[in-house]
């Protein structure tokens, strides 16, 4: 079957060249009004609504295509500002894509203005609760006080206080995680133009033993990126023994900071 559906990667407001090493991906740059859209023609066998949704249950297929989606946008992003589309955005016809561009042109221009000269950085913070628990007396005044009382008490009282401490430690670890998460968020926020909080993923999704306590994205001016990286490095080193693991990735296409508003009379 001929490839006739249009898979959309991203939009730019300046002409899009296709790097030599990605030509094999059948990419095509289409121009609509003042915008340039990077697309690929895809087959109904793979991307018709039914086939596409069936493929979504195949994680290997999703992984290959999601990685390709972000790689293509990432390569274009290296030389121009782009508005990225969600993975798997497909138009049936060129006319439909043209209508979208026309209807949303004002909003697209506003978004370009908002993201130009900025980069998206993602920060995830994990807590190793065992490591945190090991040094709870250093991080929690309440736990340290209770420990002192235990040491000074008779064996019977110490036993009861010990049980009390187990509950206290749990609550204190929750509080410390919250405080550290907020601290990291505030530090990175102070260097950013915009922020976005994403869902926290449980262990079954991360495949990690530690617990995700912060999943945030920051839109950072390019001139502030060195400070952002420096802050990341210093926080990571400072807290690595406290049981907090910080991971930062970027620059990403500005997926989290696009807000498209339709013009009132469209559709």
């Amino acid at each position, binding site marked *: 079957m001929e490839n006739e559906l249009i898979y959309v990667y991203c939009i730019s407001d300046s002409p899009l060249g296709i790097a030599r090493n990605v030509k094999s991906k059948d990419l095509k740059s289409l121009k609509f009004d003042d915008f340039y859209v990077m697309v690929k023609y895809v087959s109904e066998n793979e991307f018709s609504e039914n086939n596409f949704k069936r493929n979504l249950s195949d*994680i290997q297929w999703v992984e290959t295509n999601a990685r390709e989606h972000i*790689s293509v946008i990432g390569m274009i992003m290296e030389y121009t500002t782009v508005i990225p589309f969600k993975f798997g955005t497909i138009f049936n016809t060129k006319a439909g894509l043209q209508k979208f561009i026309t209807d949303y042109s004002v909003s697209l221009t506003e978004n370009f203005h908002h993201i130009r000269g900025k980069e998206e950085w993602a920060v995830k913070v994990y807590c190793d609760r065992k490591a945190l628990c090991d040094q709870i007396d250093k991080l929690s005044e309440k736990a340290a006080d209770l420990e002192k009382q235990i040491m000074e008490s008779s064996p019977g009282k110490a036993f009861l206080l010990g049980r009390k401490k187990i509950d206290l430690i749990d609550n204190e670890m929750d509080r410390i995680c919250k405080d550290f998460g907020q601290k990291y968020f505030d530090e990175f926020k102070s260097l950013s133009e915009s922020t976005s909080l994403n869902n926290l993923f449980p262990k079954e999704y991360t495949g990690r033993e530690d617990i995700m306590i912060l999943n945030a994205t920051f839109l950072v001016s390019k001139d502030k990126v060195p400070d952002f990286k420096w802050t990341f490095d210093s926080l990571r080193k400072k807290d690595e023994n406290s049981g907090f693991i910080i991971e930062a990735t970027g620059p990403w296409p500005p997926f989290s900071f696009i807000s498209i508003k339709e013009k009132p009379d469209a559709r």
Partner: protein
Amino acid sequence: MHDNVVDRCKDITILEVLDRVLNKGVILTGDIVISVADVDLVYLGVKLMLSSVETMEQLKSGKSIAGK
């Protein structure tokens, strides 16, 4: 941290990639687009993939699945 997005992508987990490309902030349009229910389906795939990796590792290390 890598400087090149292509190199970076190779080392990044699928969860991180999906967290970006299926983010709630990106454009929701097109004649076909992944819906919230579809996103749940995709993440279910991630979970199943990870649990099968875990099962494989347990089998390799000789632990019984029943004893999990």
